Each structure stands twice: as structure tokens, then as C-alpha cells.
């Protein structure tokens, strides 16, 4: 599903965000990406979305070599990858319904099908009945759920999240993480970047740790030991 092969990313100003990163996430797997802020978590996710391109090495996502994907092919990749951001990236002048429906409208679904899927996605994240509200009237946790509903409404095979619990209190954070867990259980491959180590460890999933641009997989047993 995702494979990084000796990937480095240097920014124009000379900082190396990722160096020789290699890892693989199989179909239907779920993993966390941990590390301090600035360790390269966001850069890694951006490479998967082709918001950035690798300076060196190869990135494979959903069977495609991203180095070979042209600008015109990017939308196709992105419509197969759901993303959730810390700052939600919602449209505040649109209703919850319109926000969640956006990926479906782009993919060319008919209005009736859009309505069915939007309601299903909102019910999945526990926001039934909030279709007509504007995001600004919702709490932080609810806004994040709108973002998640938008990310999964298209039923993408791959779901990414960048610090999805960044602004939320522990209880809400746990609920959000459990949502990702549920999506994974129905077959979606999930990769979540988070600096909340306690929460990540309590989820007992695969974990990759990024430190100054270098990646290292932390065995599950180890994280369990650290947690207890």
C-alpha cells in the first residue's frame, strides 16, 4: 500500500527533513508515526499525498511510483487517499453537508448517492443531524469529526492523519483514535502521525519513530513495556 525506498527530502533552504527513509505498510495495516515536532512526520505524509516530491529515493503508494506521476495524475491519487489534518482544513462558508460531500462531487456522484453517503459518513463519526450546521458553530472535536467524515466518505483504501488529536482533550483524542481503529477493522489502511506517545502506545499498533529525519520501527512489545 505504502512503500518508501531510501527516501530523502531536502528543502530549498537546505534543511534535510527526511534522510534515507525506508519502510513499508501493507494493505489493511494500521500504524502510527511518532516523533518530536519537526522530526519530519508532516513531510512524510506530504510525500504520500504528492504535496511535496522526494529529493531522492522512491515512494510507492497504491501500486504507483509517485516519482513517475505527472501533475495531471495527482488528483486521481488524492481521491484515493483520505486525509485528516490537525487544523481540519474545512470550508467555513459551507455547511457540514457540503464539506463532507466535496470529494463525492469531485468524483462525479449523483445527488441522491451523495446524500446517502454523506449521511452514512456523518453517522459513522457520530454527527448525524448536523448536516445543515456551519463548521464554525461546532466544537473542536466535532470539527475534527467533520474532517474525518470528509476523508472517508469516498471510501478510500488509504487514510492518513496528521496530528488529528492535536487540539483535543484526552477523552476526545481517544475517541478519535478509536474511530481510526474502526476504519482499519473494515479494511482501510491507516497511517496516523501523532506526538501523543501515551495515546499511541495505548493503541498497541505498529509504530514508526522519526528522529531528525531518520525512521525506525519500534517493536510493539517495547512500546507496551514503556507504557507499563
Amino acid at each position: 500500500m505504502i512503500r518508501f525506498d531510501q527516501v530523502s527530502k531536502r528543502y530549498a533552504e537546505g534543511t534535510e527533513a527526511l534522510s534515507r527513509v525506508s519502510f513499508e505498510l501493507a494493505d489493511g495495516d494500521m500504524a502510527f508515526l511518532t516523533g518530536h515536532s519537526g522530526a519530519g512526520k508532516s513531510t512524510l505524509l506530504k510525500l504520500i499525498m504528492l504535496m511535496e516530491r522526494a529529493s531522492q529515493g522512491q515512494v510507492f503508494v497504491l501500486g504507483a511510483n509517485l516519482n513517475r506521476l505527472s501533475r495531471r495524475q495527482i488528483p486521481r491519487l488524492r481521491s484515493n487517499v483520505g486525509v485528516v489534518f490537525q487544523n481540519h482544513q474545512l470550508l467555513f462558508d459551507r455547511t457540514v453537508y457540503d464539506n463532507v460531500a466535496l470529494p463525492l462531487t469531485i468524483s462525479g456522484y449523483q445527488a441522491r448517492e451523495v446524500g446517502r453517503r454523506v449521511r452514512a459518513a456523518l453517522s459513522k463519526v457520530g454527527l448525524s443531524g448536523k448536516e445543515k450546521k456551519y463548521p464554525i458553530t461546532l466544537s473542536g472535536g466535532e470539527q475534527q469529526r467533520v474532517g474525518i467524515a470528509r476523508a472517508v466518505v469516498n471510501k478510500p483504501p488509504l487514510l492518513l492523519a496528521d496530528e488529528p488529536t492535536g487540539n483535543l482533550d484526552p477523552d476526545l483524542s481517544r475517541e478519535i483514535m478509536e474511530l481510526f481503529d474502526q476504519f482499519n477493522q473494515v479494511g482501510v489502511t491507516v497511517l496516523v502521525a501523532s506526538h501523543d506517545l501515551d495515546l499511541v502506545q495505548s493503541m498497541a499498533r505498529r509504530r514508526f519513530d522519526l528522529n531528525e529525519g531518520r525512521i525506525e520501527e519500534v517493536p510493539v512489545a517495547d512500546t507496551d513495556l514503556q507504557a507499563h
Partner: protein
Amino acid sequence: MAAGASVRSRRLLDRGRAWLGHHRTVARESLATLLRNWLTSTMTWLAIGIALALPAILYLILVNVGNVSGEWEGKPRITLYLEDNVSSVDGKAFAKEIEDRETVESTHYVSAEEALDEFKALSGFGEVVDSLDDNPLPAVIIVAPAVSEPARLKLIIAALEDENHVTSASMDLKWIERLYAIIGFGQRLVAALGAFLALGVLLIIGNTIRLAIENRRDEIEVVKLVGGTDAFVRRPFLYLGLWYGLGGAIIAWLLVQISLMFLAAPVQRLVQSYGNQFSISGLGVTESLVLWTGGSILGVLGALLAVSRHLHEIEPH
């Protein structure tokens, strides 16, 4: 197999319908946005309208001047001076003969005596003329040609001069040539001014769309992030351009019709003072359609200009 094909074609049909539906939605939403901010929209519409109205009005002036010169009673008149030995019977017969030609509309025979009487009456030299022994004036035929183009008139005059009874033929071609030159100049002026102002409209719309793109930067980033294609991102802005262009063209149309109403009365008086019947012609159905379509096309082109320059710069980060 057949079932699979029909499912696939239905999916294609669904997609087509969804695509059309999205166009309708975007068209409606972009128009609603313009109407919601009606004050700024009206400013832009007025600017476009004035820029489009100027060449349209000039064009109409040209069309009307052409009409006036076509129906002018003082159309070009060719004067044929006949030889002295031509009797009035022969002269009248000759006039009749010329009148039957295709290039000639009508003729009028003036005998030497009539010519002298007219001269006495109009010139004020009556007594001087009375003191003359002989009538110095020849008989003339006034020919109204059926054409008014200077080049063809010259040919007609040359042909008439070669006739047996005719000593010479004359006409004041100058004023017709001048009128045609002025109309030709006017046509060029309308074309040049039209091109300049069309460019102006393009830039007005391009700039307005650029601001709209800038205002919706966040939205564009989100749409691109969830897989929006370039065409999808472009669509609302192209419709915005269409509405600006069409709205501007409608304002231009109104401005032209109002200006004509404003001008109609004095023009009527002016023409009547020359003893002519003339009604000013406004924008016909075809011309109105050309104005509206042209405005819409300019709008979409202006939007394309802005979109192609600025949309690539906006990427999610």
C-alpha cells in the same frame, strides 16, 4: 457480458448527468455570489458595459450615416450638357432612352429656355440676361444614377460623355468620395476602438477573477487536497467570468438603447430640416445577440487568462 456493458453505460450516463448537474450548480452558485455582493458586481458590470457600449454606439452611428447617405434626396446628380443643334423633341427622346438603362434611376430634361428662366430667377442677373440676344445656355438632362459608389459613377459618366448628343457630362464626385472616405475611416475606427476596448474588458474581467481566486485560496487548496482536478477547480471561475461578461453586455445593450432614445428626437429634427424622412435604427436582434455572445465569450476568455496564470500557483502545503 451484455449486462456488464449496460451497467457500464448506465454508470457513464450517471456520470454525465452528475457532471451536468455540477455545471448547473456551479453556474447558479457563482451567479448567486455576484448578486449577493451586488454593489461591487454592479461596478464591474458598469465598467464592462461602458467599454462595450462605446464601440456599439459608434457602429450604430456609422450604420445610420450610411442609411442617410443612401436615402439622400440630394443623391449624386449627373448633368449632361447637350449640343446646341439637338431639338427639344430629340432631347426628350434621348432622356427617355437613358432612363431605360439599368444604371440610371431617372432623368429630367431641361430645355435651353427653361434653363435660362431658372437662371434668371435664381441668379438675380435677370436684366443682364434680358439684354443678351442669344440664349447662351445649352439644354441639359439631369440624370439620377442608380448607384452611388464613386468608382462606378465614374464609369457611368464616362459612358454618357461618349454619347452622340452630349458635349460634356459633369458631377460633383468630391463630396461622395469624401463621405465614403469618412465611412471607411469610421469603420476602421470602430474596429480599432472595439479591439482596444475588448482588450480592456478582458483585463477588467481577468483582474476581477484574479481577486476572486485570491479570496478563495483556502477553498482551492482544500479542493485540490481532496482530489479536485484542474477542470473542477477552474469551473466556478469560468462561470464567474461568463456572468461578468454577459451582465456587462446587457448593461452595454441598455446603455446603447437609452442613448438612442436620447438622440432620436434631435436627429429626427435635423433630418427633417433637410426635408427627409428618416428613422434612426438601433440594435437589431442579430446585433443584440452578437453583443451578448461577444460579451460572454470575452468574460470566459478573461477568466481563463486569470485562471491559467494563478491557479497553478495555489497548491496545498
